[in-house]
Structure formats: structure tokens, C-alpha cells
């Protein structure tokens, strides 16, 4: 009888009654054919593959990660609570050792959602991986986490949330930002001054195929992970690198995704994008599930799969090798790079404009961080949107040192309430979320 080598849990929540809009790529139909394929293959009957019903996340789980403007209810729907909840269910089952690995096959996705949320960007409202990870850190006392984002679009939301966190390694592998939304994710984006090198970006040229992805996985991501030694590896498993995806231009395949999963060996995978709903998703998801469970996937192939037709050119191979070397060298030099950056005096500041393409909102942010070698550093964000919201958000990280905690509270206390629509503090050391009256 067919049985899994690795006990694998699945949450399958296709949200058959939820869409951004009737013809939007993120619509009811998206996982319909995937469900057909997964059911027809009988995957849930395999000994050692267990299907879980998703829990819902709590408002508190969301506020552990995000500052929602004006509040959580205004920027989410039930479906977001369930999709983040599905990830949380899988994460909890892995850490309570009910299962060895797990895959949250849920929608809507989350990796474009940043720490401050005014609305939906890139079809994402709340960051389902980050909500899961921060819940798991609280509930199971895990420390170092690596997130490997294999969606075709740069995981700019996850990058933003972990930009200053030296204990979370975020690696995004995606189609070059010069050719695709959201237009970021270049190799020189390495994290904030307190966390240089724990953000790594691997932009790949359009038409990259199996060879290129697997090269990067084996020769860049794997060595970095071995070095970082995370307690948990999370894969943001977007599936839009597929050769049939309508929104992107890569040449990856079901076989490639399955092989990538076998090499990466993630503890938890969470579905992100992927909009080739008939030609790719049914096959890619079956491939990923089998690879996670340690079952032979060699016969999982799309009807129109022809490796010769999608093979990448030698120029692309060379370009990818070069990008890989650059990223590895950043990783190896991360401590000296941090020293260089931190040499500047006082608070480190940056100003940004953020566009919410799905909801059409423009946001302006002024961010300052306390340079610190003992923790991620106290963080203060002044954010305003063209919808008239203005918020001052202060974040004290989970392992904040006494100085940073003190700084965070000082910012909060001294903030001029009348100058903002709201002044909020996320004190992760106490797991509390305060709003100044």
C-alpha cells in the first residue's frame, strides 16, 4: 500500500465562495481543478497524509504582525482569517509533532502584505506566513526561522516584515523586478542595519527553467540554510514560475517544483500565487504534496510538458550562476557589511512610497530604527495614505534588549496623539498591542 515516508499534513481550503472580483485571477475557480486532481489522485487516502480542517486566526494573531489601518476588520474578510488560520493549523501540527511536515493549500495568499496594512497589494491583505511564524514563536518558543519564497513575484511583504529581524532569514527567488510586479527584490536588498544579510534576493531572468531554479536551490539557498541553521524552514510556495502561467514569464514545471521541494525539505509550505489554474496548479500541487511526503513523483507531468521546449539558454544559465555568486558573497560578508552600515550615528531612517495595486491606495512611510547589536531594534513607522489615514506605529521586537524596549515606549509615550489618526505600539516582549487613547 502507498504510504508516506514523511508524515505530512495538509490543509486544503479552496474558498469556493470567495473572490476579489468575479473575473479576478484570485477567484472561486482558482483551486477547482487542483481539487479535482488531488481528489482523483486519492492523495488524502495515502497512509501518512492527513487532512486538517483550518482553524481561524484571532485578531490578536494578526496584530502580533501587522498594524491594520484603520483596523483589522476594514482590511480583511473571513477568507483571510481562514487562510492564515490554515497556515497556523499546519504550523501547530508540525511543532506539536503530530506531523513531520505540512502544506497549507489555502487562498487568498499573503506574501505582498507588509507590516502596515492599508488594503490589498498584489492580491494580499495579511501575511499568512508571518502570522503563522509569529504565532509559532509565541506558542512553541522556536527561535530561528528561514522563509524561502519561491513565488514568481518578489515577496516584498514578507521582506518588509522581517527586514530588521536577524533571527528570520528571508530568501526570495523570483522573476527579475525590472520585468515583473512588484518591481523590487534586487540582490542589494539585504535587510536593515541590524539584520544585514538575513534578507537575500535572487532575481532570475525571464525564461529561467528547471536547471536555473535547481541550480540556485542547490548551490545558493541550500548552503546558506546550512550555515544559518534555522529551527524551522517555511516555503512560500507560489506556483507562477510555471511555463503556462498567464501573469509571469518563467519556464518552470511540476517536475521542477517537486524536485525543488525535495531539495529544500521545508517543514511547512504555504501556497502563494499561481494562476495557471488548469495547466499548472493541478500538477504542481500534486508534485509538491508527493515530494513533501517522500513519495515517488516521477510520473507527475503536465499534458503539454516538454523539457526540451522550455529549456533555458546558455546565456541565462551564465547569468544565473553570476547572480548566485553575488548573493553568496553578500551572505558571507554579512557581518562586515553590517559594521559598515551601522557606523553612521543616530537612528537609521528611510522614506518610502508604497502602492496598493489591488485596492489603488498610495501610502507614504517614514521609518526609523534604533541601530542595535543586541536585538532587532526598536522600530517606528509614520505612515499616511491617500485615503486620509495617518498612523504612528511602534514595534518592539520579540527579543528586544532593555534599551530598545525603553526607546519604543519612550516614542509611544511622547507621541503627540493629536497629530495622528492613531498611535499604536506592538510590544512583542509582552505580546501586547496598545493603542494610545
Amino acid at each position: 500500500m502507498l504510504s508516506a515516508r514523511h508524515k505530512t499534513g495538509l490543509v486544503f481550503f479552496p474558498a469556493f465562495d470567495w473572490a476579489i472580483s468575479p473575473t479576478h485571477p484570485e477567484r472561486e475557480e482558482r483551486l477547482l481543478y487542483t481539487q479535482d486532481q488531488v481528489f482523483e489522485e486519492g492523495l488524502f487516502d495515502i497512509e501518512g497524509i492527513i487532512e486538517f480542517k483550518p482553524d481561524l486566526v484571532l485578531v490578536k494573531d494578526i496584530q502580533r504582525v501587522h498594524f491594520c489601518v484603520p483596523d483589522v476588520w476594514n482590511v480583511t474578510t473571513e477568507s483571510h482569517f481562514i487562510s492564515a488560520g490554515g497556515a497556523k493549523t499546519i504550523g501547530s501540527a508540525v511543532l506539536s509533532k503530530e506531523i513531520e511536515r505540512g502544506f497549507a493549500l489555502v487562498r487568498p495568499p499573503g506574501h505582498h502584505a507588509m507590516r502596515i496594512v492599508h488594503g490589498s497589494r498584489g492580491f494580499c491583505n495579511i501575511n499568512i506566513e508571518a502570522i503563522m511564524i509569529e504565532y509559532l514563536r509565541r506558542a512553541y518558543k522556536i527561535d530561528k526561522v528561514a522563509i524561502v519564497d519561491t513565488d514568481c513575484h518578489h515577496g516584498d511583504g514578507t521582506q518588509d516584515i522581517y527586514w530588521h529581524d536577524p533571527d528570520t532569514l528571508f530568501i526570495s527567488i523570483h522573476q527579475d523586478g525590472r520585468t515583473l510586479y512588484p518591481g523590487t527584490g534586487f540582490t542589494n536588498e539585504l535587510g536593515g542595519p541590524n539584520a544585514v544579510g538575513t534578507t537575500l534576493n535572487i532575481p532570475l531572468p525571464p525564461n529561467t527553467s528547471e536547471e536555473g531554479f535547481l541550480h540556485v536551490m542547490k548551490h545558493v539557498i541550500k548552503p546558506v540554510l546550512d550555515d544559518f541553521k534555522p529551527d524551522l524552514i517555511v516555503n512560500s510556495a507560489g506556483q507562477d514560475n510555471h511555463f503556462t502561467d498567464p501573469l509571469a514569464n518563467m519556464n518552470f514545471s511540476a517536475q521542477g517544483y517537486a524536485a525543488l521541494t525535495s531539495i529544500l525539505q521545508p517543514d511547512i509550505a504555504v501556497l502563494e500565487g499561481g494562476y495557471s489554474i488548469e495547466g499548472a496548479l493541478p500538477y504542481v500541487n500534486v508534485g509538491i504534496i508527493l515530494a513533501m511526503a517522500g513519495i515517488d513523483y516521477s510520473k507527475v507531468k503536465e499534458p503539454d510538458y516538454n523539457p526540451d521546449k522550455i529549456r533555458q539558454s546558455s546565456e541565462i544559465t551564465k547569468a544565473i550562476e553570476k547572480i548566485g555568486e553575488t548573493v553568496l558573497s553578500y551572505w558571507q560578508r554579512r557581518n562586515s557589511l553590517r559594521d559598515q552600515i551601522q557606523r553612521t550615528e543616530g537612528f537609521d531612517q528611510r522614506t518610502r512610497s508604497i502602492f496598493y495595486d489591488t485596492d489603488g491606495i498610495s501610502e507614504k512611510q517614514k521609518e526609523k530604527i534604533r541601530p542595535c547589536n543586541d536585538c532587532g531594534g526598536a522600530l517606528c513607522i509614520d505612515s499616511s495614505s491617500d485615503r486620509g489615514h495617518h498612523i504612528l506605529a511602534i514595534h518592539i521586537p520579540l527579543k528586544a534588549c532593555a534599551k530598545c524596549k525603553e526607546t519604543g515606549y519612550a516614542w509611544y509615550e511622547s507621541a503627540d496623539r493629536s497629530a495622528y489618526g492613531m498611535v499604536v505600539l506592538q510590544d512583542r516582549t509582552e505580546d501586547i498591542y496598545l493603542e494610545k487613547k
Partner: protein
Amino acid sequence: MIIGLDVGGTHTDVVLLGKQGLINEVKVPTDASNLFRSVLSGLNKITKGVEPQEIHRAVFSTTLTTNAIVQNNLPPIGMIVSSGPGVDPEFFRTNDHYFPVSGSIDHRGREIKPIDPAEIKTISKTLKKSGIPYVGVVSKFSVRNPSHELAIYEILKDDFEKVFLGHRISGNLNFPRRISTTYLNAAVYPIHKEFYDAIIKSIEQKWLHIPLHILKADGGTMSLEASMDFPGQTIVSGPAASIMGSIPFAPVQQDCLVLDIGGTTTDMAVLIDRVPVLDPLGTSLSYYKTLIRSLYTHSIGIGGDSFVRVEDGHLKIGPDRKGSAMAYGGQSPTPTDALCVIGLIKDGDNEKARNGIQQIADQLGDPLQTAALKIFDATYKKIISEARAMIDRINSKPVYTIHELQEGYKVDPKQILIIGGPAPYFARHIEEYSGIAVGVVPKWKVANAIGAALARTTCEVVFFADTERGFASSPEENFYESIDRSFTRDDALKKANELLKAKALHKGANPEDLELEVLEDLQFNMVRGFHSTGKNIRIKVQVKPGILSEYADIAEMLLV
């Protein structure tokens, strides 16, 4: 008057029911080597003094097919399996003569790769040479497009006694289960045919020209004739018979837990407003997972005759059975012996029961009565905790819409019904321990045969429409129709219900018992390139299992 006849491994139970209640009940030994004689002697005894024309209906329930599968006593079958890409079909091998072949159909029912007739012809020759008369043919996604199964059938049909096709067995998706279900249908066909012939012969002798039915695993019936095409549906109808027998005593508009406490096992099931909860996919038996509609039942190895012993200072009960209770001539202590010691059971050899329980008491370092109470407590507490776990499993069944997740029905039994010999002794204790009112099913010795007699005809229809590709289908019903873009979900529901009614009547349902229910009703807009190109509609409807409406009030009669 109606007849219910349950052919068990050792006994055949027969009842005769009328509007006035239970008219007669008999028990005859089952002679597996001569079923005809067992069935006939049961029928002879039950109809003694009754005019044949007074009998309107007979339902038979059998464990023969179940036992053949459990004992792996199955004849060689040919299996031809067309998989296409996906999980290697070799993983789903059911038997020796199992042939994965070429051909591929995708999730929308489009042909990706044709079958190879030469390949099928070669296999056909091999099977014929081995003298195999029965073949199963299954292709992946055949419930979306059965053309490959049908093409293979055309090649085989003249060379084999019977060919079973996967898409005719269930409309549900699950290729591995379709393979094992098709295999089991083919494999139990000869033994079921023997049973069928025995019934026909017995009935002819009795000059009875009445509708004859077979009980299925879902607690419903099908006509004896229909059972020849789907003999696999008779498996695990044993537990279903008893559960159906409890329905007249179950509360309306409430959830009810049914416990059938036997000698070796306790079977449990849940009724919602007198309708049994069904397994979402199909029953499992031995190492086969199937698409055979069945009641959601859970069986545990704890019963009146379970083997009681002390291991590492801890009391252990079951799952083994070493024979009957010591009070009734057995060799090892059992929960029944504990009941004798406590004084709840008055007959039996009390001395022997005390001796048995004393061994346990000595090992536990307890007085005799304390040990007996501990055994009794452990027995019913285990049953209740397993029942709670089963209810949790029913309630945690994954759902795929926000609506179902938020509004989904939660099973919460307000009554427990117990069937079985020890039932009365357990009732009060289970009620105190669980906090749920407990009732005992009367006439428990023939509850199985009563359940069979009262069961309605049930069936299910899975309906699929794809307006982009312009077709509606229900391959299981051999229904295909071209449709245009104006085909709606209401049209689909109407058509599915029509098909269901026709199927139920064809399988022998009474028109007044057609309680139809929609199990699935989904419609998706298909969008390609930001434009709506069609609708994808999925409908699943069933005739609910339940008891014949004309006998709905029989409970009061049975209590007499």
C-alpha cells in the same frame, strides 16, 4: 407484510413484519456450503401459515461478500488500468493480473492521449489464456469522460463473462478507490451470484412474486436484479442492518448515537433526525478503500466477550476475544463475567465468573467486587470515549467554503440508543457517565433483520456540466447531453433530480419514499483571459437512507 432476512456467518435471522408489528422471528444456522438450504429453511419457517399473496416485499442482507474479502477468498480477476500522468498506478495494484495501460484523460475530461487497442488485445489474450472470466476496467477521470473505459470494453466484451467499468460504479472522483471498488465488484461477483441464485430458487419454490431487495452498506436497499451489476455494494451491510433496526426508536429532529454492543466488537453510528450519517467517500474493508456508499460507522474491539487481563499492573480489555465468557463455558475472564459478579446478569455460571474475575482482582490487588466494577467501568468508558472521538471526527471533516466552515452542522447527540445483549446492563451507567439519555432497542436479537426489512431503496447521482465545453453528463447513469451557454444551475439541479428519481425507481424504490436531498451544489464561473467563458456546475443528490414511510410508526408495535 414484509420479510427481512440477514444471512450472517453462523446464523440466518428472519423476521416477518406487518402493520401490527413483529409477527414472527426465526433463527436458522447458516450453511455456507449450501446457502440455498439456509435461505429456504429460513423462509419456510417464517412464512408458515401465511398466504404468499400477503407478502409484499423481502429484503436480504448478507455478510458473504464481506467475509470473502476479509478472508481474502477471492477468485483471480483481470484489471486494466489506464492512468496517464500522476501517481504511479503500480501503487494501486489490487491483484496479480493487474495491467497499467496507456491512455490519458485530464481533469476536465479532455483526451490527452488515446488508448492503444493492440495493447488491450494482447492483455485480453493473456487473461483468456489464464482462464479469467471477470475483468475490471478503470481509467483516471473516467467520471468526467468514460470514452477510454468504453473503448476498452468494446474490445473485451465478447471474450469475458462480465466486464465491470469504473465509471458505472460511482460518480465520485478518486482513482485509487475506483480501482479497488471495481476490483471488489468483479471479485465478489461469483459468490454474490451464488447467493442470488439461492434466493431466486427459494422464492420460486415459495411461489412468491414480490419485489426482492438486497441491503447495501449505506443502509438502503437495491433490487436483487440491480445487485448483480454492483455486488460490491453489499459489503459491510451487516453493521448497517442493525443501525437501520434502531431507527424506529430514534428521536426526530435530534442527533442520536447508536451503539451496537456485541460479543467481540462494538459498532457505532450517528443518526441526525433519524437519518444515518454517511461516510463522505466510501467504506473501507480489509486493506481496500472504496467508493461504496456506506454509513459512517466505527468499530472497536470491545464487547461482552472481550479478553480481560492485567498487563504491567494495568487492566486491559480486548481487542481479542478468546471465546465466550467463563460464565458461559469460556476459558478467560470477560466484561460479561464482571457483570455476573456485580449481580447485573443473573443467569450463567456465577461460580465460574467469580473465579475468572478473582484472577484479575489478585493481580490488581483489589477485592473481587472492586475488580469487577473496574472492568465494567473501563468497558463502557472506553466505548464512550471512542464514540466521542468518532463524533469529533465527523465534526472536523474538512469543508471547502467559508459558508460551510462558519455554518457547518455540528453533531451533538441528545440520545444514545444501545443494541445488543449487554445493552440493558450498560444503559444506566452510560447515561450517568455521559450525561446523555440512553434508550435500549427492543428485540435486539433480530434488530438486524428488522433493519433490513424496513430499509428504503437509496441511491446517489453525481451530475456535472461544463458550458464552456458544451456538455452535461452523469456517466454513472449513462447520461450525456449537449448543452449551450444558457444552461443554468437550476437546469442542472432539475436534471440531476430527474435522473435520481428514475434511478431510484429502477432500483425498486417506492414512489412515496423518494426523499431527495442535495449533497453538493456548486457553480463556478470559468474565466479565461479576464472574460467569462462558461460555467462549471457540480451537483450531487441522493435518496436519503431511512425506513419505509408506511412503517414509520412501527416502533410502538415493536415495544409490545
